[in-house]
């Protein structure tokens, strides 16, 4: 019996030593995860996550301080990609794909103050002083920063209406299990 104990202990110790050695010898340098995350992020610096921009958010994610579901514009697809990249299991059932929104100027109310133009992180608002402004839909990220600064509440966030071209088939709902 003692022989068995000795042998097993010795085996355990030596194998543990080998493992420890291997861990030191073959250590992989940590990936620059934050950069990879940032590459996935929308990059419009909208700040809806609560961080000042996409880079700080990516760093927080890499440190494990933020959830993969933090980015509303990225929606479910981004959350899935982040979860895969970081190797975490995240409950994505709660993440609804954010209804994509676009800013629109109510032309009756716009006074041409240029405030939204300066606030827009993607230069999607065009206009000049005392001229009615206009939003380029292709460049609008839907972040809503312009709405916050507009003095006359003429900026509105409206959901993008589906057209025949953008309409998609819904997922089939099956009653049976």
């Amino acid at each position: 019996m003692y022989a068995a104990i000795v042998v097993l202990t010795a085996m355990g110790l030596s194998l543990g030593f080998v493992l420890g050695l291997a861990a030191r010898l073959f250590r992989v340098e940590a990936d620059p995860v934050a950069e990879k995350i940032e590459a996935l992020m929308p990059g419009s610096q909208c700040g809806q996550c609560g961080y000042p921009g996409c880079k700080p958010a990516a760093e927080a994610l890499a440190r494990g301080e933020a959830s993969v579901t933090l980015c509303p514009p990225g929606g479910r697809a981004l959350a899935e990609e982040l979860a895969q990249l970081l190797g975490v299991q995240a409950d994505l059932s709660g993440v609804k794909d954010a209804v994509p929104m676009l800013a629109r100027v109510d032309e009756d109310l716009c006074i041409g103050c240029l405030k939204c133009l300066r606030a827009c992180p993607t230069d999607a608002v065009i206009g000049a002083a005392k001229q009615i402004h206009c939003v380029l839909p292709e460049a609008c990220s839907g972040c809503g920063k312009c709405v916050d600064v507009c003095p006359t509440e003429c900026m509105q966030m409206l959901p993008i209406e589906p057209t025949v071209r953008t309409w998609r088939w819904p997922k089939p709902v099956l009653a049976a299990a």
Partner: protein
Amino acid sequence: MILRLFRIRGGVHPPEHKHPTASRPIEACPLPARLYVPLQQHIGAPAEPVVQVGEKVLKGQLIGHAQGPVSAPVHAPTSGTVTTIAPHAAPHPSGLPVVCVTIEPDGEDRWESAPAETDPFLLTPREIGERVAAAGIVGMGGAAFPSAVKLGAATRTPIHTLIINGGECEPYLTCDDRLMRERAVEVIDGVRIMLHGTQATRALIAIEENKPSAIRELKRAARIDERVMVVRIPALYPMGSEKHMIQTLTGRELPPGRLPADLGLIVHNVATAFAVHRAVRFGRPLISRIVTVGGGALREPRNREVLIGTPIEDLVECCGGFAEEPARLLMGGPMMGQVIPWNAPVVKGTSGVIALTREEIHIGETRACIRCGRCVSACPVGLMPLEMASRIRADQFDGAVDHGLNDCISCGSCAFVCPASIPLVQFFNFAKGELVARKTAQDKSQVLKLMAEQRQARLEREAREKAEAAARKKAEREAAKRAEQEAAARETGT
């Protein structure tokens, strides 16, 4: 000369239901009270309207001109007044509207120009292409791809064989069958014009064996040109799919991402050939087409020659209305057609309007997959529909793509044979749409990222420039001050 045919994999034999409409001649449809002509009836960019509300238009007059390289113009189907240019229900399952030019017919049906016959064989291939483009001809088998773009491919790649698709493998549809039987000479003329336009050496008109009269008529009409050959092909769904027609006739498979033109082939529908005949020989634009109005819910199923823009409602009315309320109203055949709103208009790609009763559909309640493998045997592309569907159900889109989702032609053979009534095609449509949506979102996010970076760079540059300008100004000011001081010192010194 007998052409050797090649087998395709899979395929199904749905019940044909062609008899009620195949046995009766094509009839005209009376002028409706209003025509809704969509500006986009084709793949590509929508046409730009060139008429104003209130304007009087004549039959065949251009009302929307083509925009961009892949597009097609739209013409007035009859003479009358443009009442609105506004969104109207599209022939699309979503029921969403598209911009339509609404014309109230004046009943005179007056052409813009008198008919003038030209000899198409005196024209150059380029001129034929231009005439086809100007007539607004699109693929009339259902895909509605602008035909002139396909014909134009011949100028870039040499085409040796023109394939004319007279397969009509969809159940219920008989519009091509009737067209070939009644207007064989015109169809052959159109085929010869396309041969001239593509400079191909031969034309193969492929017709399924279940249409013996059409084969006979076309063979008789084709005697005038030895380059045109009528080929009898097996009746098997989806024989009318471009990929499978090419495989049947040539034994070659179209590699992924390649066009038939890359193999020296070009495929057009028989109805397109007829439209080409009218357009090139008589200068008539595409303003009407033959539509099979069928299905068990209809009182008088017929083939009708219908003006583009005729509301489905009026079309059904002129076929005696419904005998019973249809369970589904479809545009196209029942295997690949789509449910459409009741007030949508007939468009250039409408081959049929089918009203099915509940008994005809008999798709039962969805049950669990029992892995019977029938979908695998039925798939003409060699996919494993059950595996793709189970992955899509778990939102594993990458897995579905690995299994060949992008090769799926949505023919519906798998769902047709599925004993568990699993909506396989809807799973695939959903996944394809989701992938497109993700791609679009990704592209947009790339653009936004770039814009944000450029803005950041601009802001920094502006700040820098401002700082530099301030520094420069300061330096200038100081220099000026120094100069002043020096001058003053010099003055005091002297």
